[in-house]
């Protein structure tokens, strides 16, 4: 049958060997990793919410930190993952790299959003405002969110996966150059207009009672990130297979 033969040819053509191995490996990893992240985060939360003292200055609101700081870290980590994967996709044309980059973006964006929201929530009691344009870190975080959203929008609007992958990779790489520039520029701009920020980002030296839950939460979030990345990559690969099957079927009888 013409349909069958062109379908198998399409599969051969795609050299799915590599993604196939990934699918096999990841299917075994997802469940344990998910469990691990749940455990670590649960432990972290217990230490953070129950077993650690409130801060002598900040009171109970300090507990926001245990979500806020790991989220902020992973927001930046996510972009690095995306940028590295994009570079690999552009240079080595590895079929999994662009899947990884695409899948990392929404996760990173979610953590960025979480960092922004928890930061705002924290800022309200600490600082008397939800948002302060004069602060470099806040603004650069918002720009990071824009970069994520732009990257996702580009993927969403280019129909053809190969084309979308390359274009998005170019954007991610250019964006990664932009990131330090933005941070530096905003710092510079900040000192000009508003010399002293209301609060200090480096904060008081952290007590060990706070370090443990913070470390646990950071670890838990990282494992969560990896788990979500795997899940999304699997979904993306499946989606592409389905799309190819659908298109191959549409083409199979298409002839003259």
């Amino acid at each position: 049958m013409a349909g069958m033969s062109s379908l198998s040819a399409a599969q051969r053509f795609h050299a799915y060997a590599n993604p196939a191995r990934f699918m096999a490996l990841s299917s075994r990893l997802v469940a344990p990793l998910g469990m691990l992240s749940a455990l670590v985060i649960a432990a972290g939360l217990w230490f953070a919410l129950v077993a650690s003292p409130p801060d002598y200055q900040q009171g109970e609101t300090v507990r926001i930190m245990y979500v806020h700081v790991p989220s902020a870290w992973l927001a930046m980590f996510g972009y690095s993952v995306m940028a590295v994967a994009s570079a690999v996709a552009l240079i080595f044309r590895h079929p999994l790299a662009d899947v990884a980059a695409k899948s990392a973006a929404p996760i990173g964006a979610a953590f960025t959003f979480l960092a922004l929201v928890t930061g705002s929530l924290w800022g309200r009691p600490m600082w008397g405002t939800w948002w302060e344009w004069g602060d470099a870190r806040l603004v650069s975080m918002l720009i990071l969110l824009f970069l994520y959203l732009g990257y996702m929008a580009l993927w969403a609007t280019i129909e053809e996966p190969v084309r979308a992958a390359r274009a998005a990779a170019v954007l991610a790489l250019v964006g990664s150059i932009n990131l330090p520039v933005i941070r530096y520029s905003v710092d510079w701009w900040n000192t000009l207009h508003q010399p002293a920020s209301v609060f200090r980002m480096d904060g008081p030296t952290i007590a060990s009672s706070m370090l443990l839950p913070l470390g646990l939460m950071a670890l838990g979030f990282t494992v969560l990130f990896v788990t979500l990345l795997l899940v999304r990559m699997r979904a993306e690969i499946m989606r592409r297979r389905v799309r190819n099957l659908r298109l191959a079927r549409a083409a199979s009888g298409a002839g003259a």
Partner: protein
Amino acid sequence: MTTSDLRLSARDLACERGGRLVFESLEFDVAAGEALVLTGPNGSGKSSLLRQIAGLLEIGRGQIELTGGDPERALGEQAHYLGHLDALKPSMSVLETIRFWALYLGGSAAAAQAALDDMALGDLADLPVAYLSAGQRRRLALARLAAVPRPLWLLDEPTVALDQASVGRLRAFMAAHLAGGGIIVAATHLDLGLGTAKSLRLGAEEMA
């Protein structure tokens, strides 16, 4: 252009568009002075193949090679690609258009003027492109081939919209190119009148 050891060949070529395999294991060889005519039903991949040769479309697998050409320039730079889109700007005049392309593609302004006359567009030189009829636009697109010599011509249904006189002119023009040692690859549903041409039928097995 007079290198007579020019040869365009494809080995085990495959093309994928939008996730679907259009053709695979395609092979051909065209030598200097020869034409290859691509035929086949709609959607069999003629236009795609031409774009692959011009370097405007990903090559899925296999390779396309031009031997005996200028080793310093990419295949696309040694080829004229005439596609369905004619790359014309409505607000430029006919003469400005062909002048621009001649200069951009490495020809001369004098050649541009001569090319217009070749395509019987001399009288329309000062008209804006917006005022041209379908066939006149096509002739202007074809004038590019006359303005800048390139050994390889990739023509996608070149006779579309041309009247009979223009088709005759195009045939003579193609014959002269072949006689000068050039190569033509053309997709068509009609007879192009390239008597001696090799022909490649795409997607024949899919035909009802």
